[in-house]
């Protein structure tokens, strides 16, 4: 609408501000907690703003001395990056061809529906069989084992998302490419995948986040620093006799950084994909 009344404009801006506050307030509080001293955090009434900025917890978590909380945290950070990256990459390797095949053969759609149907099962139902399988193959408390479990969650999701992404790419383009003499790999590499790049980037972000934030299976299938992931490590911080809420908040801030980095990286791919011009040949 070109002409909006003043009241309507104020209403829109107020609502936008409200949404922004709702989204940003927990993040802001997380950061404030991570730099407040324990005294400030446990004071009554609560000190919303710390007297002094306390960055000691960051140095604690980044410290590398043996058997320190920092070493455990850093190894779990490494495990999380390893597990989430492996699972995401493997899911894309499986999901890109599978999504394309499902998009081009609609009669196969029911198989995808069936796989998505397994999502209806609660993770608890699958935990025992998965545990037994991992134990059988000696993959308990192992980053590869956990990545494999995540792959089984991510692959259907990524395939389904990518199928929806391939659907609007006209089949004529593939026909034209094959008449023009392209082999299957050339057709995918030069024509189809560049057009699907935005949705591939989206799938990558969501798959990475899903793997990064997963807690339940990680808790069940890992037991020490060899494979324990960040979500479990943060839970451990709260599990002791004394819970340092500031420390948990600090770990939360650090845990949020890698996904943000992936998001920023992918945003470029998203934007470049979108500016490449419409799909309408």
């Amino acid at each position, binding site marked *: 609408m070109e002409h909006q009344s003043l009241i309507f404009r104020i209403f829109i801006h107020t609502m936008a501000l409200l949404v922004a506050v709702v989204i940003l307030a927990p993040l802001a509080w997380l950061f404030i907690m991570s730099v407040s001293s324990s005294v400030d955090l446990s004071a009554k009434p609560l000190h919303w703003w710390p007297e002094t900025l306390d960055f000691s917890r960051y140095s604690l978590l980044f410290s590398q001395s043996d058997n320190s909380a920092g070493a455990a945290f850093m190894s779990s950070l490494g495990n999380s990056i390893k597990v989430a990256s492996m699972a995401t990459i493997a899911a894309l390797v499986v999901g890109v061809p599978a999504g394309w095949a499902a998009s081009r053969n609609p009669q196969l759609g029911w198989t995808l529906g069936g796989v998505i149907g397994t999502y209806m099962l609660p993770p608890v139902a699958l935990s025992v069989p998965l545990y037994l399988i991992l134990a059988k193959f000696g993959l308990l408390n192992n980053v590869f084992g956990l990545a494999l479990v995540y792959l089984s969650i991510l692959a259907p999701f990524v395939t389904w998302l990518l199928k929806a992404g391939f659907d609007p790419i006209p089949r004529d383009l593939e*026909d034209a*490419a094959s*008449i*023009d*003499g392209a*082999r299957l790999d050339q057709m995918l590499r*030069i024509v189809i995948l560049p057009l699907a790049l935005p949705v591939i980037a989206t799938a990558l972000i969501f798959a990475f986040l899903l793997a990064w934030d997963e807690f339940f299976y990680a808790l069940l299938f890992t037991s020490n620093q060899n494979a324990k992931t960040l979500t479990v490590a943060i839970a451990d911080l709260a599990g002791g006799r004394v819970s340092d809420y500031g420390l948990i908040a600090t770990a939360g801030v650090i845990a949020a950084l890698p996904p943000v980095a992936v998001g920023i990286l992918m945003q470029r791919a998203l934007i470049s994909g979108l500016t490449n011009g*419409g799909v309408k040949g």
Partner: protein
Amino acid sequence: MSTLELHGIRKSYGALETLKGIDLDLQNGEFLVLLGASGCGKSTLLNMISGLSEPTAGEIILDGRTLNGVHPKDRDIAMVFQSYALYPNLTVARNIGFGLEMRNVDLTTRKKAVAEAAEMLQISHLLDRKPGDLSGGQRQRVAIGRAMVRKPKLFLFDEPLSNLDAKLRMEMRSELKRLHQMLGVTVVYVTHDQIEAMTLATRIAVMNGGQIEQLGTPAEIYNRPTSRFVAEFMGAPPMNILPTSAVAGGLRLGTTKTVWRCHHPASEIVVGIRPEALKTKTIAGGLRLSGRVELIELTGPEQIVSLALDGASITASLPAEEELRLGQALDLYVDTERLSAFDAETGLRVEITSEHPKA
């Protein structure tokens, strides 16, 4: 020399047979138009020539080589799609050169070939752009350039002009005709537009229900349609079809008093008259149809007049200069040479010779 031969091509999807035995023989340099309403199987036939689908039965031979089972990329055929199917992420130059790139032609040769094609199609200034930045007509030119640059044995066009507006369509039509005359290539062109078919083709195959109804030059198809379907499909406004009844020594047209003196078979006959065959001037030995002017539609160069006869109505294309009024009585004349007769039952053409009264 015949380039493309189709022998007994059939295509079935389950129990549904969309093509019921197509036989065609295409000479080198010919421009064949497959013409038909949607669903008649013309695009299916084109897809089988290109290799995008395989016939259920029959043989496709290009330059003496059987193409059945050969992958599209190995057929030496180029195709222009209705949607243009340009690669949106590649530049115009790369789009045009794509076929050469896939065939590992070196960059200098490729650039030269692309530049030549672009020059011929007047799109040299667009080579660095992406397809998304081009207008419909420009995209169409790029699509033609992409097909042309490889110098294939056969060009396929799948309703290439139907996404363009009327003016551009006419422009591109002439352009295609010019290119065909210049390059002398062999073309199979699918369309539902009879004007495109008439203007472009060296031969037209009118298709109906998965079969070729008539194959011939545009003039043959228009003037001597072999069936009522072809007669009614070709021409705008469409041919007038009048039922007849046998009277002594001839056929009475409809319920009018007009009698066509002729030798006719015993079966029931319908008579077709092209609107432009009807004249206001008397024609020696011609038939006279008398009626009342019911509707006048001026198209510019001519007026399309609906004439109410006794119990029937016919359409005539008359010069715009004729002064006519609604409701006036009008006599129209037609040369019996320009009548087409069809069997009412089978719809097939029946040759009928007029019997001229002795002078």
